[in-house]
């Protein structure tokens, strides 16, 4: 397992950086919402649903993994020591946003508002992972950190690139709200590949739990992506 860069105050460092990630995402979301037109207060209920779904989703995935690993664990132990999953958090946030929209009676697409915010938040939050979690699998590559793949730096680069691309694609997709679909599909593909450099356990057939999660979600993402239409000039905007 790869080396952890910060051990003594690791949990605090991780939490501070995740806190910064939430702030960064919130600011981007506010700017996006302001840019989209008059502020609709019901969007706050959607945000509340997203946060609740994300918080539960990241824990739920860990609870499942913990219980399946340990068997007779208590709920409290699973809460204290269970894993937290970014993929579970994203899935939960998606479901939470849908629930929030239903609760608030908000029927406008929100994917275009959320996508850049999530991308930047993930980029910032992954610095917390880089400093406090196992770096990755051993490698002799010249860019290795302490002899391990800096897998979280790969992911930070992906999210920053995605943030830039998403900003350029704003308003250029024919399907309203499709920015989030594009982002999630791209992240799913990237995550599947980057897992080969991560220090996560193999679950079966040489693939980690995250890779199995991505495989399970890919048909839905592919379907949503298939329904996404590009407006003229969308591809040119990226060059």
């Amino acid at each position, binding site marked *: 397992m790869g080396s952890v860069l910060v051990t003594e105050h690791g949990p605090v460092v991780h939490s501070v950086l995740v806190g910064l990630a939430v702030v960064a995402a919130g600011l981007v979301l506010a700017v996006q919402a302001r840019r989209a037109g008059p502020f609709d207060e019901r969007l706050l*209920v959607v945000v509340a649903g997203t946060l609740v779904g994300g*918080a539960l989703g990241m824990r739920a995935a860990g609870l499942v993994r913990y219980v399946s690993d340990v068997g007779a664990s*208590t*709920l409290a132990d699973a809460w204290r020591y269970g894993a937290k999953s970014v993929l579970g958090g994203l899935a939960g946030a998606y479901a939470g946003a849908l629930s929030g929209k239903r609760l608030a009676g908000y029927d406008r697409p929100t994917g275009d508002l959320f996508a850049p915010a999530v991308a930047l938040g993930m980029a910032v939050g992954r610095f917390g992972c880089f400093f406090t979690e196992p770096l990755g699998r051993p490698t002799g590559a010249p860019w290795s950190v302490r002899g391990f793949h800096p897998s979280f730096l790969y992911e930070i680069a992906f999210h920053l690139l995605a943030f830039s691309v998403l900003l350029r694609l704003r308003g250029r997709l024919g399907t309203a709200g499709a920015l989030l679909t594009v982002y999630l599909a791209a992240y799913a593909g990237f995550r599947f590949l980057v897992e080969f450099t991560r220090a996560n356990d193999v679950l079966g057939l040489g693939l980690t739990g995250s890779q199995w999660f991505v495989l399970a979600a890919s048909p839905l993402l592919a379907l949503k992506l298939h329904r996404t239409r590009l407006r003229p000039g969308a591809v040119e905007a990226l060059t």
Partner: protein
Amino acid sequence: MAEPGRDGRIPAPSSSQLAFGWIGAGLLVGSLLAAGLVLLGVVTADDVVAEWLVLGIMFGPPILGTGLIALPGPSARRSFGAGLMMGWGVALIVSSGLCIGGAIRTPFFKVG
């Protein structure tokens, strides 16, 4: 969906649905509630109490917040519910790293 006005922009909803002061109060209560329950869950030695605390942490604020938003009533109540859910969600997401210190000493340490 509302029709665009003369300037081409979609007008804001006619009635103000949320009160920002109450959202702030909900944020504060939600985050303090989550933080307090997380701390209690970490320090308590009683397993039964810990189990109930975890259940309380996981489902209490979201259910309460959802109920406050969904039920018809004054905007202050709905605003407080939205703030409660936001504060609770943010606190739990941010505090996820605080468990690493304990988890890293177990064979189940995985964050990702």
